[in-house]
């Protein structure tokens, strides 16, 4: 159980795909101007990465190493296309808001990376957990960024005004410069947190060693 929890949870912060691995950065900046967009993108990616991990872990035995990458990409692209079709049919407004980035989910490095690094070597259940964990980490990051950006950049959360009438939104936050700078500091915060955790773990280990 613990092992499973670890597989799932490492994607949240320790190996957060955006803040730590620095993969799939484009959507983290492009579609986080509002919480709803960020959330949709996060969920879409979670869906794609989880499904793809499962698919890959199932078919991994039959895939010729020479065409591994194209096959995985085909798989991802299929899943994305399905997501596109579904969104287009049932949530056309969101589909429009995602714009070209929805199609670009195909090439988000994190998805292929998890397929290559994890799913192609592990069983279905583990791969599912890994994909889901990474997806959650991704969504978490998207939400964090989106909440801050929407809050300061528009003064709203999910479109609901928070600061009241007098607030003059700080437009920078929803424009590229603000997004870059904000993520810079979030990365630093995440790193600091990780370092603290590691230090704690090391101390605990030392203590355990001494007691033994």
């Amino acid at each position, binding site marked *: 159980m613990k092992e499973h929890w670890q597989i799932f949870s490492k994607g949240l912060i320790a190996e957060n795909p955006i803040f730590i691995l620095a993969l799939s950065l484009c959507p983290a900046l492009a579609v986080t*101007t509002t919480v709803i967009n960020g959330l949709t993108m996060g969920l879409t990616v979670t869906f794609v990465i989880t499904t793809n991990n499962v698919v890959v872990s199932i078919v991994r035995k*039959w*895939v*010729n*190493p*020479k*065409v591994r990458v*194209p*096959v995985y990409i*085909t*798989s991802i*692209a*299929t899943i994305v*296309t*399905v997501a596109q*079709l*579904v969104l*287009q*049919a*049932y949530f*056309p407004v969101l589909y429009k808001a995602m714009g070209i980035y929805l199609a670009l989910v195909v090439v988000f490095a994190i998805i292929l990376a998890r397929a290559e690094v994890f799913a192609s070597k592990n069983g279905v259940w583990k791969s599912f957990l890994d994909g889901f964990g990474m997806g959650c980490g991704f969504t978490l990051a998207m939400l964090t960024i989106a909440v801050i950006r929407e809050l300061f*950049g*528009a003064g709203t959360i999910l479109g609901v005004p928070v600061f009241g009438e007098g607030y003059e*939104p700080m*437009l920078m936050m*929803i*424009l590229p410069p603000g997004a870059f700078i904000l993520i810079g500091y979030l990365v630093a915060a995440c790193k600091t947190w990780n370092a603290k955790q590691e230090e704690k773990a090391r101390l605990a280990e030392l203590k355990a060693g001494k007691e033994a």
Partner: protein
Amino acid sequence: MSSNEHSTFKIAFNLAAACFISGIVIGSVYFVTAPVAAQKAEEMKQESMKALVPEAEHFTEVAGHEGWFAAEKGGKAIAYIVPSESKGYGGKIKMLVAVTADSKVIDFSILEHNETPGLGDNAQKPEFRQMFAGKGADKLTVTKDPANKENIQAMTGATISSRAVTKGVREAVEAVAAYKAEGGAK
């Protein structure tokens, strides 16, 4: 490396098989969603046009003018919905303009733009759009004088966007006027 792994046929087949499966999956999903999507799209289009000309009963395409629709009520074209385009602060602004049969603006909606959120994109807001209602081409110029109620008041901090949108709307109105003048009413 066994020669087997290198076999051209095998490799190609592998990829092709993946594509085959993918085709089946996409095909079946498409089979389900395509009609829904088409229906939704149509609905949305109708709805957006309806929002522009609420009293219309139905919309028909205008022959010879791509993208134009005539809003009909009781079999009579009471308004036209005309696509228009102009250059704003951040690039192209695409919009749909509803114009009455006697070449007055009813309303417009912006389809695509790249204006700054909070500035140029306020053009989509009702406060700005309301100023256009009922105006003819001659009144469609931008002013920065707050006392001037005749023309279109520039949005604060976004004169460029204001001018762009106004220009787009004016062009649509002029196009309708020209169409009418040609006797387009048939």
